[in-house]
């Protein structure tokens, strides 16, 4: 009798946990996963005064730890997080949450104080810190701790040299180091020269350029969210979604053959996954005429040069994509500067606005293209394979 009750319990338990796992696996399709994290980010930004309260934050982190431990009981999830390469991912998640909390907690306090007209946390006390002993001691302790952690890490987690590369035995999936998984994810959607050269350069140059674009002195030297909601939200989108979430996606959801797997799914290299990718040119020249039943439109993709050979075939073929992209990069900023970015445009002026839009447009074309790939199998807006220009 007792055994049967136990087994019923066990069955019910495993049933519930299986249901949860199946749900989470189903939600791991990238369009859902990234949408959900974006929604979570928006909710987090809207309710930053609530979730940063110490009790709420502690409860949330306890819930997360419970979830993580429960996940680790799953064989497939355990395999992912215990891979030596992936240990830093867990640390990254924890530290990202911690520093975000620290910043938003202080912003919440400061914003509340500003509303009441009280002095900020940063103002007031004269707190010069002496280099000796205060700073040097802190650095010494940090140095010793770092050394100890690194030594223990190096001893406990093996990072052996593997055999020489062999084309018949390739790791599947072949993953970059954890900190590059976000960039590797970009390579799925963009040409190597965009995902590997242009976008990383824009990230670095853009971060350097930020203080020259943003002249607003509010928030200099003190934490606040209320005074700078647009700037901080934009940065949080770029940082949290376009970097952290993509690393998490690359670590937990990319499996053999670079297919998407749920975090609790077995990595089966033979699982069929069909992805027929199409270009905008295919949609415009082939699919739409077919769908509209244009019998007279036979040629499909244009293959002949026009204007006496001065306009090569690929320009005609890719014209729809070129028009779309030109609109996005050159017309949209004009419209925005006249409408919702009117105030920003007048504050920062023409040159700064151009740089601002350059950075914004490239940041947002990444999620736009990802969503189009996931939902409509879009491959390239403009695909000039003849000259390796594919966007």
């Amino acid at each position, binding site marked *: 009798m007792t055994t049967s009750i136990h087994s019923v319990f066990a069955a019910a338990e495993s049933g519930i946990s299986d249901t949860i796992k199946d749900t989470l696996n189903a939600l791991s399709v990238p369009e859902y996963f990234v949408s959900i994290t974006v929604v979570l980010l928006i909710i987090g930004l809207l309710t930053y005064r609530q979730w940063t309260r110490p009790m709420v934050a502690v409860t949330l982190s306890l819930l997360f730890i419970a979830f993580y431990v429960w996940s680790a009981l799953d064989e497939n999830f355990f395999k992912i997080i215990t891979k030596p390469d992936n240990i830093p991912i867990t640390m990254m998640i924890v530290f990202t949450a911690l520093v975000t909390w620290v910043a938003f907690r202080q912003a919440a306090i400061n914003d509340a104080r500003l509303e009441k*007209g*009280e*002095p*900020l946390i*940063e*103002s*007031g*006390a*004269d*707190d010069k*810190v002496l280099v000796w002993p205060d700073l040097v001691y802190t650095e010494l302790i940090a140095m010793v701790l770092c050394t100890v952690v690194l030594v223990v890490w190096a001893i406990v987690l093996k990072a052996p040299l593997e055999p020489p590369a*062999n*084309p*018949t035995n*390739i*790791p*599947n*999936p*072949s993953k970059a180091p954890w900190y590059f998984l976000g960039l*590797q994810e970009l*390579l*799925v*959607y*963009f*040409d*190597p020269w965009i995902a*590997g050269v242009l976008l990383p350069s824009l990230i670095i140059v853009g971060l350097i350029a930020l203080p020259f674009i943003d*002249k*607003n*002195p*509010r928030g*200099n*030297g*003190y934490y606040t969210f209320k005074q700078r909601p647009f700037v901080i939200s934009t940065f949080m989108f770029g940082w949290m979604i376009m970097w952290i979430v993509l690393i998490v996606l690359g670590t937990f959801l990319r499996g*053999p*053959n*670079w*297919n998407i797997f749920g975090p609790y799914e077995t990595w089966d*290299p*033979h699982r*069929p996954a*069909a*992805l*027929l*990718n199409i270009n905008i040119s295919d949609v415009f020249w082939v699919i739409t005429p077919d769908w509209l039943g244009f019998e007279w439109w036979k040629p*499909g*993709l244009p293959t002949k040069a026009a204007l006496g050979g001065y306009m090569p075939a690929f320009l005609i073929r890719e014209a729809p994509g070129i028009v779309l992209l030109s609109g996005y990069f050159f017309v949209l900023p004009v419209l925005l500067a006249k409408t919702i970015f009117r105030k920003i445009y007048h504050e920062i002026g023409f040159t700064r606005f151009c740089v601002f839009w350059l950075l914004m447009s490239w940041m947002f074309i990444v999620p736009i293209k990802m969503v189009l790939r996931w939902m409509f199998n879009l*491959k*390239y807006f403009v*695909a000039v*394979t*003849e000259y*390796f220009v*594919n966007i």
Partner: protein
Amino acid sequence: MATKALVTKVWIDPGCIVCDACETTCPEVFEVQHDNETCIIRPEALDAEFNKPLTESIIEAAEECPVDVIKFDTVEVDAADVPAAPKPAAAPAAGAADASEPATAAAKASPEKPASKVAAPPKPKVVDPAIQALLAATTVRGGHAVINQGIQDLPDSIKHMSKLSPDKLPPDARHQKVLQKSSPKKDETSRRDFVVLGALTVGWGSVAAAGGVSTLAFARFMAPNVLEVEDPKVRCGSLAKYLAMAPGEVNEDYKPVKPSGFWIVREEERIAAVSIICTHLGCIPSWLPNDRKFKCPCHGSGFKPNGVNFEGPAPRPLERFKIYLDGDDVIVDRSKKFLAMGPNDTAKWNDPEASIPV
């Protein structure tokens, strides 16, 4: 005891309109250079002792300047110690002190120069209001400057300034450069010039040499250490083996061949050699016989059995090598490639050397 303000240092802020007024008033100190479109302080006037006797005319020139760019510092001395000046008249202490402020503030603060011979009591040194506003609005904590809340009690003009962004504030008048014109004494300086030039040559020369050597070392590093002398031709056995394959089947025997492997694929009416390098970023795809496709483990590009890309980021189909028959033997020659530029642009594959017809 009466004191007197004497000019020790003169300089010119940016904004000179090259109008000759100052040179007319005080030619000892100012020199207008129409060619350079500016006015300079003569080198002699960089000396405090040279300026002191000229206090009167310098101040006059400063006041006459239509754009108020002439600034000067003064020092208070006993009236008795004043050296003989051409015109020992009123010493305008207030005007001198105010002159270190930007023009707008000076106009408000000192409406009239005191006419009496008795100099005004020494004022505290007037700080640039821009600096004052920033200092008032700022406290330094933990290494960074913070906009303080305690600016309510300050005058409106300063409150206003604390709200401006730093590049809208008036320039700090104390940090402007003085355009100097030096007249080098040829004999003395030529030797020093020679030494400096020599040192510079040696210094930059060694920097260039170090850079050049490391560039060469880098170039050597980038050059392959191994000379590839392998035969581009690979003998792949008799044709019968490949004729036995069903259309769409892939032979993986020559995947590990160095330096570049290939698959031999059987199409409906021909046999071809397909390179194993993914056209996206150069990873090596795996042949998945169950899915009947090549799938790249790096970024998920997928290729049909004939090498045509259909999924993932790869822009072009897999490349093909020259393949031909030598008697009954199939030879693959990797020195010649046939590139298809897109899934619909595979005309190059129809070249007779790109496949063996079946």
